[in-house]
């Protein structure tokens, strides 16, 4: 699956295992110490029903966290993404997988997603267009945009 990251479509270095090892939440819980001892970059795959709190501060041990959208109408990953970025300070790649469509990219990015598995061949142009569509935002979110001077709450 092509990966949209930093405004461009690239190959996914995690796809063939060269970038590191991806685990699920259950695998992490069962093998945490073993995995850490292996000293390889780690990736975590989350379902929308997974509580990011169970990862907690361990989030920072991952170079990649991917949260799945089984349907684009499932809004849980947006909350998961914000908690990872804002509460646990997760600074690695936060990837949206599953049904990732152009018209949700801007919401995803605002919540802290910075990489997208997207099947659309025009992903890069669509992404640039989509995130540029609304320049004014009314609330702070996971992308850590700074507030404008006019209001503590508005960002433009």
């Amino acid at each position: 699956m092509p990966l949209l990251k930093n405004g461009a479509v690239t190959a996914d270095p995690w796809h063939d295992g060269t970038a590191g090892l991806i685990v699920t939440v259950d695998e992490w819980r069962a093998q945490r110490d073993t995995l850490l001892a292996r000293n390889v970059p780690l990736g975590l795959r989350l379902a929308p029903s997974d509580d990011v709190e169970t990862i907690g501060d361990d989030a920072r041990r991952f170079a990649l966290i991917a949260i799945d959208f089984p349907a684009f109408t499932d809004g849980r990953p947006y909350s998961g993404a914000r908690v990872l970025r804002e509460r646990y300070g997760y600074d690695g790649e936060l990837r949206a997988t599953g049904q990732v469509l152009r018209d949700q990219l801007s919401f995803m990015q605002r919540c802290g997603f910075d990489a997208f598995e997207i099947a659309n061949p025009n992903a890069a142009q669509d992404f640039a267009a989509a995130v540029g569509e609304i320049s004014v935002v009314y609330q702070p979110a996971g992308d850590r945009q700074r507030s404008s001077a006019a209001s503590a709450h508005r960002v433009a």
Partner: protein
Amino acid sequence: MVATYHYDDADRTLVRERVAQFRGQVDRRLSGALTEEEFRPLRLMNGLYLQLHAYMLRVAIPYGTLSADQMRALAAIGRRYDRDYGHFTTRQNIQFNWIKLEETPDLLHDLAQVDMHAIQTSGNVIRNVTADHYAGAAADELDDSRIYAEIIRQWSTLHPEFSFLPRKFKIAVTASATDRAALKVHDIGVRLHERDGARGFEVMVGGGQGRTPMIAKTIRDFLPEHDLLSYLEAILRVYNRQGRRDNKYKARIKILVHDLGAAAFAAKVDAEWAEIKDGPLGLPEAEVARIRHHFQPPAFRDLDAPNPLRVAKARTDPAFARWLRINTHAHKQPGYAIVDVSLKPVGGIPGDATADQMDALADIAAQYSFDEIRVTHTQNLVLPHVEEGALHAVWQALGSHGLATPNVGLASDIISCPGMDYCSLATARSIPIAQAISTRLADLDAQEDLGVLGIKISGCINACGHHHVGHIGILGLEKNGQEYYQLTLGGDPGADASLGEVLGKSFSADGIVDAVEKITVAYRALRTPGEAFIDAYRRLGPAPFKETLYAAA
């Protein structure tokens, strides 16, 4: 300038960009780049439904406040894009029933010119934040509830985390002991009140109607102003993550609150809130002051009260006197009055207004009410600030456009959803029942004698007519291809909210009108002097009413 929130450049930019965004989405839908499944949530987030006969657009009227120019713009939209009329709804919005998808971007563009939009009036998002329709005018309010409704509106607009909730989300705000916004049947109700000289919010969650009606539970008694948005964010985040997504009919927050129990739900909210309460959503006093400044009162004149002209006219004109008694209310400013504008003419369609009526009302508001109009959740309108000395002229002007029926709050002030005449979800028609009941109970003296009586009709189990909180509620169902109507009694939407009880077997369309009349006869026979219908029902219980309806002849 109308005493309400005025857009600045950032607000206008957002609305303009939103129109362009939707135009692009419509183009991609029409070209096939978007399937209906992908497009549907996007068009719902712009208020556009596909209904029984055509697309229906629900335009947002934040906390029910409109300027005269905005009302004129709605009239123009009704003429240009629809069939010269609109319908005011139970959430203070307006709906147009005959919209074309391909024209909607142009319609939204026209709305943007008067700082209006249809953002988030549908879809699984936070919907229009409603408030007290007498805000800024009522003598009993602690503050203008619209200030906080506006703050919540901004925070909830295009909120990236909460645009795909399990289901729709409705928030209402009041600032007085009398609840004129039906807080207890909202997903979140916010009530500003005072304690020991300090101000705080009572926060209620999990109210709602529909298939499983529930009264909201208070989960916080006294939330400081500074914490309003962070606390709401905590509630929404808990709901977004834990609300059911497997069953559309169990997906509202009321189900989550009910399943967990209010205390456990509150504990989850508190746990989440503890993590975010000191973050960027703290509401500084300066920000509240910035919004409050928009709502400062209009330039009221220093007037004597009561106004001798009003008093004299009332003495000599009984029709005017009746309208004064029924359709006007005391204003906090001496010498002013709040005017209710009835959209419930006898035998008419509840909540509908023609484009001509909208234009007329805009002119009346411009001349007599500081340019300002309100929409109530009972499908009526309000002129909030009218000089007592102008009341007779206003009454005559309203009357000449069919807007002065002296029935607000009375039996013929019926709330009715559009029902099966318009709505693809409906199981029965509701409007003809409203018309028939209104005609049967038309006598003005009799209505005044009956007093406050809220009759509410829903054409299906989704309860958009709010029948669960009707003193008399009517639910339209289908049985063997026939429309049948179930009667409930004893609902109420106010601070002492209750849900109506089913009395017995359902009625035919003719039968339900007779049944409602029999209820009023029984009430008259059984009430104590001055006892309102809802109080009589609570005292007597259903038994005497059941007997009058169902006892063998």
